């Protein structure tokens, strides 16, 4: 499974588990303006660490944090290289 599809699957799973209303997981979705709260991101990041073996949020230095879903996917793709 690609990094992108792993990430999308985790988002979908957490949205379902946490009963969140997120319209569509489009590339330009601004993550913080979605219904996802800190806990949702914490769960997604923990599960992605298990699935992909990387946690770019803990490793990141001098890198801008992701704002959109597209940024988020690139953040992980770069870390997984």
């Amino acid at each position, binding site marked *: 499974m690609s990094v992108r599809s792993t990430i999308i699957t985790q988002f979908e799973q957490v949205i379902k588990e946490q009963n969140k209303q997120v319209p569509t997981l489009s590339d330009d979705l601004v993550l*913080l*303006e979605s219904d996802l709260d*800190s*806990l949702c991101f*914490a769960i997604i990041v923990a599960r992605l660490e298990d699935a992909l073996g990387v946690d770019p949020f803990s490793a990141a230095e001098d890198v801008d944090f992701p704002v959109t879903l597209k940024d988020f996917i690139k953040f992980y793709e770069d870390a997984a290289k």
Partner: protein
Amino acid sequence: MPPNSRSSLWDLLSAGDRWSGRSLLGVDASVALGDLVQGSSLGGRIEELSGRSVLVTTKDQLTAALACIELDGIARRLVLCPPDLAPEHIPFVTKTAAVDAVVSDSPAPEAGAPDVGCFVTCSPRIAPADASRNGRERTEWVLLTSGTSGLPKMVAHSLTALTGAMVGAKPPETPVIWSTFYDIRRYGGMQIFLRALLGGASLVLSSAHESVGDFLIRAGASGVTHISGTPSHWFRALMSPSARQIAPRYVRLSGEIATQAILDNLRAFYHEAKIVHAFASTEAGVAFEVGDGLMGFPASLIGQGGGEVEMKVEDGSLRIRSARIALRYLGGQTEVIADQDGFVDTGDMVELRGDRYYFVGRRDGTINVGGLKVHPEEVEAVINRHPGVQMSLVRARKNPITGSIVIADIVAKSEPGAAGVPVQTDAVKNEILETCRRALAAHKVPTVIRFVPSLPVSPSGKLARFNA
């Protein structure tokens, strides 16, 4: 002027006319402190609240802030209800604090409000009022924090202790505008509220009903120079498209352990700002601030006597003695805040690596999920209800967004007649998770469940909770 134990907040603001030219800015309204000197947010009814134990239960932080300024020195006790206080806990809080007056921002008592005979409405519309203040109470400030039993712990402070970290601070050379992601009815937010008031600054208050982006836009528009929050707040801020709406000179982190990643990212993002992380607890007060950009704290802070704060490490946990610690817990509990030598055991376990100490968890296993405490026993009790569970251990897993998340290790029961093979299926896991979701708040539900063959047990036969 250093506060002495007889000075009220009002006295401190009046000394040297610290009222003019600054404001408390809420999401829906703002109040110039200068207006408060000539009027009242309480309709001038402070006489009625004189000597009383006052429950401050407002929806808005601004009204709570105004009530605190007016009532310190007048009320015998100010009990500050945090916004997430469960309604079913209000009778307990009322009884324990012997509440005999309620201040609210509703025009009339709402359903569930305690009926104690005295109800006063607090409003950001300052009404003209007689400015005479006759009270000389040494008001006790009561802050709530979560307790193991599910009931809140009520921690009593004096104003002197709450402002201990601000004594002797030099007045700023350039105007300061403070803001905080915290609610001021929590210890971390209260520190910023008092810091702003006594430091001659304005303060931009957050609101639970406002998005991070909107708050940052409002803070930026108000020209915020100093801003505080937990590492979780800061993660959200940095992921917001509005993160560049503020250009702070000072960024403060507290309430959770600051990781190197968040410190580095804040430094890179707000490169003009001094980045400081502080250690404080509701009971122990503000212990120290670290401004060298590194996580943990220098070992040289330990064992220094004679200063305002003394710290030591005993049995692996950080102990603090200072004039900033709380007076006591309210209620009949036997638990004391400080030991006979005056040290508070924070319960935070630290480890010395090189010349620095690092935080490695809580002795009692309490998990801090984005500033919200989770007591593992509560979650284990829910998990253990499942017929397939023999025992469980709920513990923290480090997380860059919320500091920690909750995970559970479970020893499964063997199916009768299945030759001792435990049932460890995904179906069982999902059933357990479903039970947890129904019974517990979202941050308490385990994110990951693992089946394990056995769990570590201490020599006393209890589950070994602390494993750094």
